[in-house]
């Protein structure tokens, strides 16, 4: 079965239907069934199964469960799909994830657990059945969604600068993670570290691994919060404000440079420092902090680096000037 390829508008429309409207309909119908059956029975349902016996709770526990997982999942994935500029890469499997999660929670944990509440097969049958349905729903969504026609591979090289012999052109720029994001992550890490210290004081030193995750988180965020980008006669350098990580393309290795439209989810599957095989199949690094125009620098062997700096056009023109100049 070959996948249909369509233009961006219809790809986006079908993706929005599959990621928002169909899951929303499933959640609403599931809620209606849960409420009808639950309120109709008028008594408490089993809400927890364990080896020793089971717990009961009010029937609306399931309605709350369906609503409290269904709507946020749809909202979260729908937010990313609505903002996507290209239905490719990670964007193309997000509708399938929305579908799978919704089917599992709404039909398996919601409708299934209510309908089969007193059955001896609960909770295995509703959960296993919901899981199978979810996988089938996700795979079907993935299979049936049309793909967006691929953007033309290869970048539009920038026009080199009219640099006269003897003149030297240089460009510098910076690349920053959004301030609110850094603030949120550092706050979370700081809170975890404080909690870890409290735990150490109360429970003794054997709990030290609790610091590993927040410390790693802080290190990563500090190392990637700001990058300095330079372009000039020596080539191209992207360097973290800390000095590492860094990427370098010497002028002798420069093939071409240009401006590309970056969609973090479609092109790199997310933000930060990324590596994908890329349209050239040679490997493409990304230092991605936002969507929109970015600079792509291609090496002679076809590998490339994409950075989402402002004023990428000037940087590309500078690099193109030194890429074309015979060494």
């Amino acid at each position, binding site marked *: 079965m070959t996948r249909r390829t369509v233009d961006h508008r219809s790809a986006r429309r079908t993706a929005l239907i599959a990621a928002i409207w169909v899951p929303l309909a499933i959640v609403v119908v599931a809620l209606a069934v849960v409420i009808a059956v639950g309120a109709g029975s008028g008594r408490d349902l089993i809400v927890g199964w364990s080896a020793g016996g089971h717990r009961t709770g009010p029937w609306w526990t399931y309605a709350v469960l369906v609503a409290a997982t269904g709507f946020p999942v749809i909202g979260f994935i729908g937010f990313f799909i609505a903002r996507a500029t290209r239905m490719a890469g990670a964007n193309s499997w997000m509708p399938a994830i929305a579908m799978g999660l919704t089917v599992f929670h709404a039909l398996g944990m919601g409708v299934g657990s209510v309908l089969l509440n007193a059955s001896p097969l609960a909770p295995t049958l509703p959960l296993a059945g919901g899981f199978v349905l979810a996988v089938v729903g996700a795979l079907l969504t993935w299979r049936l969604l049309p793909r967006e026609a691929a953007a033309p591979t290869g970048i539009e090289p920038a026009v080199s600068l009219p640099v006269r012999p003897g003149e*030297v*052109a240089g460009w510098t720029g910076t690349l920053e993670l959004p301030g609110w994001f850094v603030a949120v992550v550092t706050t979370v890490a700081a809170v975890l570290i404080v909690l870890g210290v409290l735990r150490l004081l109360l429970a003794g030193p054997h709990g030290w691994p609790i610091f590993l995750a927040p410390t790693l988180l802080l290190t990563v965020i500090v190392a990637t919060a700001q990058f300095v980008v330079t372009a*000039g006669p020596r080539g191209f350098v992207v360097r973290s404000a800390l000095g590492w990580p860094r990427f370098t393309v010497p002028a002798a290795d420069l093939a071409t440079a240009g401006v590309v439209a970056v969609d973090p989810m479609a092109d790199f599957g997310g933000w930060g420092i990324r590596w994908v095989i890329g349209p050239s199949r040679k490997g493409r690094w990304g230092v991605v902090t936002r969507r929109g125009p970015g600079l792509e620098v291609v090496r002679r062997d076809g590998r490339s680096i994409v950075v989402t700096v402002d004023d990428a056009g000037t940087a590309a023109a500078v690099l193109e000037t030194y890429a074309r100049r015979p060494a």
Partner: protein
Amino acid sequence: MFVLIDPTATSPVFAQIAGSITTQIATGTIATGARLPAARELADSLGVNVHTVLRAYQELRDEGQVELRRGRGAVVVGTPTADRVRDAVAKAAAEAKAAGIPIGTLLVLVRKEYES
């Protein structure tokens, strides 16, 4: 930030760098409050000595265009005269647009005023 220099020219490279930055501050390409790249970075991008760039930055500080702060680097401070000129030009351009005067005519008028 984009800088173009000519090491073979008669004027010293630090003056060329300072001049290039001065022009960009005057035209608003570099905004007030913006931080200039670290001297090390700019020197690396142009392939010149870091002291050349530091000298250019000191020149700009002596002219009151940037402030050099330890730890914060070179920060562009608004020069009131440059801001006033830019505001006046913006006003003239808006007036010309409203009156339907083409840009060529406006430029001729500006040149005439400047040279008179």
